């Protein structure tokens, strides 16, 4: 029997039928949809990295690190970078497995995936997605938010004269002293920030529930169990990080500019 007839007989006798088109359709479009999802997830990583980079305390980096370089290295969002790299690799592999994925050279495919992720990531950053992601993570899990945003740990070093946190209460003790109660998820207990007339305050003042950054010094008071921090400068937490004018002009910090509301 010739092979042609043998094959036709096998098809007939074993009731072999072509696999339905929709299964291939699902496979093909499933891979492209997965590519889209991976691209978006990778772009979220880029948007977050860009957002965190712009908010990386450029106004006080000299207080946090020895140089700009060490500041960048110590506050790089490595977890987001890892997520971005993993998504990029998966995207590369996924596109490679699409119907015509083999026809692109590795280099072209890699740079196309990288370029698309970065472009989309910048786009998402511009419309505020990076900030939104950071807010969601900070609100959802404040104790682990520093893993995504290392800046939070860098700003939680009272022993080095830097503290950040959310203001939970403000008490005016006297005409010259105000106590602000600050919660920091990475530090134990409530911190009492002592504000005096020489303390530089944000132009917009400070409200309860505001997140702030404080430069100053930790007060080691053995008589009280309170964690106290004497404030020299209080800065808003969310800032583009423009260096304050007094610092640019190499002046002494100005006196109290605006009372705490």
């Amino acid at each position: 029997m010739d092979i042609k007839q043998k094959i036709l007989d096998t098809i007939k006798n074993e009731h072999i039928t072509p696999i339905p088109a929709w299964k291939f359709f699902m496979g093909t479009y499933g891979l492209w949809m997965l590519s889209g999802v991976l691209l978006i997830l990778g772009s979220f990583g880029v948007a977050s990295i860009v957002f965190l980079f712009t908010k990386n305390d450029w106004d006080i980096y000299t207080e946090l690190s020895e140089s700009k370089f060490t500041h960048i290295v110590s506050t790089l969002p490595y977890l987001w970078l890892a997520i971005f790299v993993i998504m990029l690799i998966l995207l590369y592999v996924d596109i490679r497995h699409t119907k015509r994925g083999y026809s692109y050279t590795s280099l072209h495919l890699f740079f196309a995936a990288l370029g698309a992720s970065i472009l989309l990531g910048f786009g998402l950053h511009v419309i505020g997605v990076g900030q939104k992601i950071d807010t969601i993570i900070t609100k959802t899990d404040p104790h682990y938010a520093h893993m995504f945003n290392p800046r939070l740990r860098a700003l939680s070093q009272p022993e080095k004269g830097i503290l950040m946190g959310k203001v939970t209460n403000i008490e005016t003790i006297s005409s010259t002293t105000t106590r602000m109660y600050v919660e920091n998820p990475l530090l134990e207990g409530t911190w009492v920030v002592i504000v005096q007339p020489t303390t530089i305050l944000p132009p917009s003042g400070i409200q309860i529930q505001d997140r702030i950054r404080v430069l100053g010094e930790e007060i080691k008071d053995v008589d009280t169990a309170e964690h106290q921090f004497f404030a020299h400068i209080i800065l808003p937490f969310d800032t583009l990080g423009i260096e304050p004018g007094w610092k640019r002009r190499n002046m002494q910090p100005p006196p109290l500019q605006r009372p705490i509301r």
Partner: protein
Amino acid sequence: MTDYSADTDESLALRSTTDHDAFGALVGRYEQKLYRYVRRITDASHEECEDILQEIFLKTYRYLHNFDDSLSFSSWIYRIAHNETISHFRKRSVRPQTIREEDGTLYLQNIEADMDIAAEIDTKALQQQIQKILDTLGPKYKDVLLLRYLEEKNYQEISDILKIPVKTVGTRINRAKKQLHQSITEQGLFITP
């Protein structure tokens, strides 16, 4: 019996999902070519080659709806043939590949023509030497050389069959030719400048 001689492979593939005779016509068109191809990329016996060929056509039939009409049908079925043969021999640790006696002349003629190897030297001796050298090349180089010089496929077709970029096809062919050139020169066989 319908006459399919005027139909292209691609239109036959489309009709084959509902028309067994159309598929039979496709089998008829590719039976010999694919049998030869399977024989060329393995050292399988006649019976084993027929078994593989049957697997190839049955898989082609099952996957008819997956045929990408941006490819030529020939490239698509050669791809299936290549993959099925590889997976058939995956059970063995290696896929034996030697150039068969009957293919030797055509293969070597095409390579020689491409590499400007002088015709005036002892062709038989040269062919034996080249055959030995070709046998030492890795499978990825042999696969492209075989498709290029025995199956006479162009770079795009080889790219579609082996699922590698066209640029990689070119690189592999050039590297294989370079190795061949080097070995020929080292062995004192003359190549025209």
